[in-house]
């Protein structure tokens, strides 16, 4: 295995409180030292990265890989390559596959394919109910044994609150984190955009703010009642974040995330019926967006994720309500998050914490830090290497992005996974 000396970069490890220009040493796939080489260490390769940032590989709490079942949209191989090129070294794949991830066999299939590809660590989330049907508990103990890092029902409804309560209690029994997508299905109804001034004008069925807050309030009560460890996914409203913050202040150990596009887009962006902006939860108001940005800055939101949902072109080629929701987000995760730094809302180390130590804590993972002894998952990026997003040049098979033509400054130049180079922008591997 390659022995690395990464030199002259600005090393930022939010978990260790490190932010200084120094050297990083890697051997046997692990971080072995910072600052000074261990005794007897000789590097096979020296990577000089002056002016660049060296940070832990990014952890993305949600990236749909579309395999098995939706290979016409993407594959584990195609999306793993996109993740590696984006500095992401660990990602959670949600169970929205076909078959859904509700048996160890599907977990094994995904894990084997991902290992064969080898560009990113894939951590499956299991289904909370069989087939995501919302009616019968999944075999959570078996899913955990097979490698699931949590269980979730995504946006598939569980209409029977008693069942949701039992699902939480059962997950708690096996020390599994429940990933909750707060969305009250009756209140969402057939809605496809935020219920507000734009939905009123466009005559589209809206998804009201209360579809999130009612679900968050109900879930918080059930979390306290069952004692389950819970994580709120994709919060989209100021009020929803407020409820989570209040519960945390009361001592309830819940975590929460937001997806990167929610920090930059609002309901106004769908005014032109552009299906690229069709996402769930929907883009909300500017006030909501500002609250989400503030919550990322102050740590109320532990993680920013891509909520990557690659689609084939046809999935977006219809009147907006008939299109499939979602954005191909892997390649904009880092640049969209770091825009909060440019906007003066948060320092670079704290912004990186939401992509590394924050999601690592949600997963109870050892990844997300450059501490000696840990796996050498490293992201190296140039903070000032302007580029424009051209959908045709995305690595992901999904070209569905609303950020076409946007200019970004940070660019990932190298990604190391377990000490091996899995992405290098400027050199041949």
């Amino acid at each position, binding site marked *: 295995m390659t022995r690395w000396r990464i030199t002259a970069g600005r090393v930022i490890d939010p978990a260790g409180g490190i932010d200084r220009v120094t050297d990083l040493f890697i051997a046997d796939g692990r971080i072995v030292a910072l600052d000074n080489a261990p005794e007897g260490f000789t590097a096979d390769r020296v990577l000089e990265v002056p002016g660049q940032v060296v940070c832990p590989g990014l952890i993305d709490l949600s990236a749909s890989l579309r395999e098995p079942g939706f290979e016409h949209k993407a594959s584990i191989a195609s999306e793993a390559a996109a993740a590696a090129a984006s500095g992401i070294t660990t990602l959670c794949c949600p169970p929205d596959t076909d078959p859904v991830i509700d048996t160890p066999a599907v977990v094994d299939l995904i894990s084997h394919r991902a290992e064969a590809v080898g560009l990113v660590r894939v951590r499956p989330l299991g289904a909370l109910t069989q087939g995501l049907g919302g009616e019968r508990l999944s075999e959570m103990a078996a899913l955990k044994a097979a490698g699931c890092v949590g269980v979730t029902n995504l946006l598939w409804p569980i209409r029977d609150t008693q069942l949701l309560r039992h699902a939480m209690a059962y997950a708690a029994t096996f020390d599994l984190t429940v990933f909750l997508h707060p969305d009250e299905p009756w209140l969402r109804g057939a809605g496809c955009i935020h*219920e*507000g*001034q734009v*939905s*009123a*004008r*466009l*005559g*589209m*069925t*809206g998804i*009201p703010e209360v579809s999130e807050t009612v679900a968050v309030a109900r879930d918080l009560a059930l979390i306290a009642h069952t004692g389950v460890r819970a994580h709120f996914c994709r919060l989209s409203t100021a009020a929803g974040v407020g409820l989570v913050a209040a519960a945390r202040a009361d001592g309830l150990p819940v975590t929460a995330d937001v997806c990167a596009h929610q920090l930059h887009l609002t309901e106004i962006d769908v*005014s*032109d*019926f552009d299906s690229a902006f069709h996402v769930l939860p929907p883009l909300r108001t500017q006030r909501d967006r500002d609250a989400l940005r503030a919550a990322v800055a102050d740590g109320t939101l532990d993680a920013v994720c891509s909520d990557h949902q690659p689609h084939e072109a*046809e999935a977006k*080629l*219809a*009147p*907006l*309500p*008939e299109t499939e929701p979602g954005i191909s987000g892997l390649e904009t995760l880092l640049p969209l998050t770091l825009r909060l730094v440019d906007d003066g809302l948060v320092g670079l180390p704290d912004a990186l914490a939401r992509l590394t130590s924050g999601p690592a804590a949600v997963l109870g993972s050892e990844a997300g830090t450059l501490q000696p002894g840990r796996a050498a998952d490293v992201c190296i990026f140039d903070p000032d290497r302007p580029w424009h997003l051209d959908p045709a040049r995305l690595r992901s098979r999904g070209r569905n992005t609303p950020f076409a033509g946007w200019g970004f400054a940070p660019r990932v130049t190298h990604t190391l996974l377990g000490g091996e180079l899995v992405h290098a922008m400027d050199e041949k591997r």
Partner: protein
Amino acid sequence: MSASLQVDAAGRLRHFLDVEGLSRQQLIEIMDTAESFAGVGDRSVKKVPLLRGKTVVNLFFEASTRTRTTFELAAKRLSADVLNLNVSTSATTKGESLLDTLRNLEAMQADMFVVRHGESGAAHFVARHAAPHVGVINAGDGCHAHPTQAMLDMFTIRRVKGEFTPLTVAIVGDILHSRVARSQIHALNTLGVREVRVIAPQTLLPPHVEQLGVKVHHDLVAGVRDADVIITLRLQRERMDGRLLPSKHEYFQRYGLTEAHLTGARPDAIVMHPGPINRGVELDSGTADGPRSVILQQVTHGIAIRMAVISMVMAGHAVEATA
């Protein structure tokens, strides 16, 4: 928003998708053009040779009799060939996508699509993806817009009232689901009426409706007080299933228009309805057939307005083709 899609740099109509985004001058031009066509129907030969050799496709993904018929008559009076397609019962049920349907019709050398679709934004989608030589007219998309209906209503108001600026207009009924109401509100505000009011229970009003430029009333008598124009909206049967309204009966009691409610309105107030009417729900027969009613004039004016819009959009493309 849709201005760039439906209007070219010189201000000519390329498509007619939405009243929103058009100027007062453009709305007046549509009405003036309609005025010039209004007499055609009274002649013994009800045709002008303006669109000879052109093919207009009525592409209806939703059932409609009145709108489709008046579009068909309008196109035929302009001497165009007309093809009626009720896609709701053919292609899409066989799994063909809207885009594939469009491509097939373009391959048959259609010059114009008149589109009605159940989803908001469908006409915009068609306009965005249609071949450059094809004009698109929105004949109703979801709950979003029904701009030709709104323009025929404006045309009717202008013919009866003359001026827009002194008018108070009240719109009664299911605003939430009404593409007609949304287009009317934009048109009335663009034409500069004094006040637009909406009258409905909260369950039939979109949240933030006041941002469309209307005053909200929940009481019918207060809402029509001193109004010059009262527009009643059709209440779709599926709204009467008890989820938004308890019953047809209670709706008529509170929001059904009768002579008794109209005592507070202006003595010369007119009553409109886009049709088809549910008698005894939105208004009673006495009002629908009474002296204030201009409901049948609306239907007649629908042909002239649609002739105007078809010819203007076709002209916009003719200019483009020669340029």
